[in-house]
């Protein structure tokens, strides 16, 4: 079959005497191929990528409204995690312990004047709010109670609409890719587009020189439009990442799917966020924590500030003036020690 475009005729073979020496073959490609095929393909791909991003941004469902109960509980959880995590070390021991008690005491506990801990109050609040919300919904639904057993039977987190959203995104991407690939291999068939600057084995020939017929002796690194398409498709991702300044569409979809499945919260996948229960658990956990097992960075603050100048065994003389305390009487040290004191008072 003859090549459909005579542009190819301008190729020159450097070793015409021996057609089997494929590696020394250099094709000189027509610059019109560059102007009308290679660069347009690149532009098409960039445009398609931009289109896909913006359409995806348009079609993206608005984020699910988070109920105020859950939002409140989550911010409470954030506070607890701060106390429990490393930043708890930046307050003093007494403050930490006071917070732990104030947040986690049970009702009727002797230690804190019979007041319930803040977390448990929050949990009770969330419980009552949730009940009120449910009651409200029930009265609103009124007659259409027939739906209720169905929705109740559904697994939490397995909301079909959210599952479908992720699927839809993937499907759209796949359809777009397939259509683009078909179109490109149809419109730009029969060109040797570029030479990839690395050797390929003959196994790739079928794949990368699709659309080029009866060029059995052509070096495999000369590729046709389909492989250029693939190269551009994968290679432009980094470019888009730079151009968009935000994660790519497919990555966003993946993240959303993860969020839906509850993976980012560390909870069990598919589990629904149950505010009262989580709060109670956190309160119990906090109650079990022991202040003695924790390190407080505030206690080491002086040591860190003074470094080597920190006096070794002068702590016994505490209270008899800063000159004695630090064993040194230079003005700089005085200033330092007074600043430390101020810090400690805070």
């Amino acid at each position: 079959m003859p090549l459909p475009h005579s542009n190819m005729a301008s190729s020159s073979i450097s070793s015409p005497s021996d057609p089997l020496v494929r590696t020394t073959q250099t094709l000189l490609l027509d610059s019109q191929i560059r102007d009308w095929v290679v660069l347009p393909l690149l532009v098409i791909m960039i445009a398609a990528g931009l289109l896909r991003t913006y359409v995806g941004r348009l079609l993206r469902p608005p984020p699910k409204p988070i109920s105020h109960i859950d939002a409140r509980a989550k911010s409470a959880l954030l506070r607890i995690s701060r106390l429990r995590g490393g930043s708890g070390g930046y307050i003093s021991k007494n403050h930490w312990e006071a917070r732990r008690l104030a947040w986690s005491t049970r009702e009727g506990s002797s230690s804190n004047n019979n007041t319930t801990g803040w977390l448990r109050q929050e949990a009770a609040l969330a419980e009552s709010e949730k009940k009120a919300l449910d009651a409200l919904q029930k009265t609103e639904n009124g007659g259409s109670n027939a739906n209720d057993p169905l929705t109740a039977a559904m697994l939490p987190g397995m909301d079909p609409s959210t599952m479908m959203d992720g699927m839809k995104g993937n499907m759209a991407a796949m359809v777009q890719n397939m259509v683009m690939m078909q179109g490109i291999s149809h419109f730009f068939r029969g060109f040797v587009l570029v030479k990839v600057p690395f050797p390929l084995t003959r196994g790739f020939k079928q794949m990368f020189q699709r659309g080029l017929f009866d060029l059995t002796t052509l070096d495999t690194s000369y590729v046709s439009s389909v492989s250029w398409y693939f190269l551009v498709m994968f290679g432009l991702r980094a470019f888009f990442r730079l151009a968009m300044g935000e994660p790519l569409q497919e990555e966003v979809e993946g993240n959303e799917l993860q969020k839906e499945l509850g993976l980012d919260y560390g909870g069990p996948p598919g589990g629904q966020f149950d505010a009262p229960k989580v709060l109670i658990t956190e309160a119990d956990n906090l109650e079990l924590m022991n202040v003695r097992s924790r390190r407080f960075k505030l206690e080491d603050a002086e040591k860190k500030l003074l470094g080597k100048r920190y006096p070794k065994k002068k702590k016994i003389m505490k209270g008899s003036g800063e000159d004695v305390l630090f064993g040194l009487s230079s003005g700089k040290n005085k200033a330092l020690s007074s600043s430390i004191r101020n810090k400690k008072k805070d």
Partner: protein
Amino acid sequence: MIDPMADIDGTTSGSGGGAMAMDPSTNADGEHNQEVFDINAHRINMKKMDYIRSFMGIVSGCVAGVLGLTGLSGLVCFLLLHILVNLSLLFLKMNGDLHAYTREKNLFVFLIASDLQKCGMSFMLFWTLFYGLVYLF
């Protein structure tokens, strides 16, 4: 370029998020989860590093293409430039303190393995493109 490494340094960052769901029974040692860790700063660091690497992947592809490298020499050029970029990230932006900024302990993983594939694809594209534009047509 903005300094990509926000204050994730364990000694200066004040607002640590900590891990959300951590079993309190395991923190009897207290050492393991008392690390101050700001997840947002970490995310920003990762994003900035990703930017730099993508950009340098593209640029190194152009370099290799314009220089007319083919075959193995192009691959070597890519690996060298990738490592060079990561090293300069490490020493110019992170002051050589890898763990404080990325929580990555393994130097090898940081230098070689991270984002190699993503960079490699864009490198290949721009390598091919510029090689073609300069030498082929």
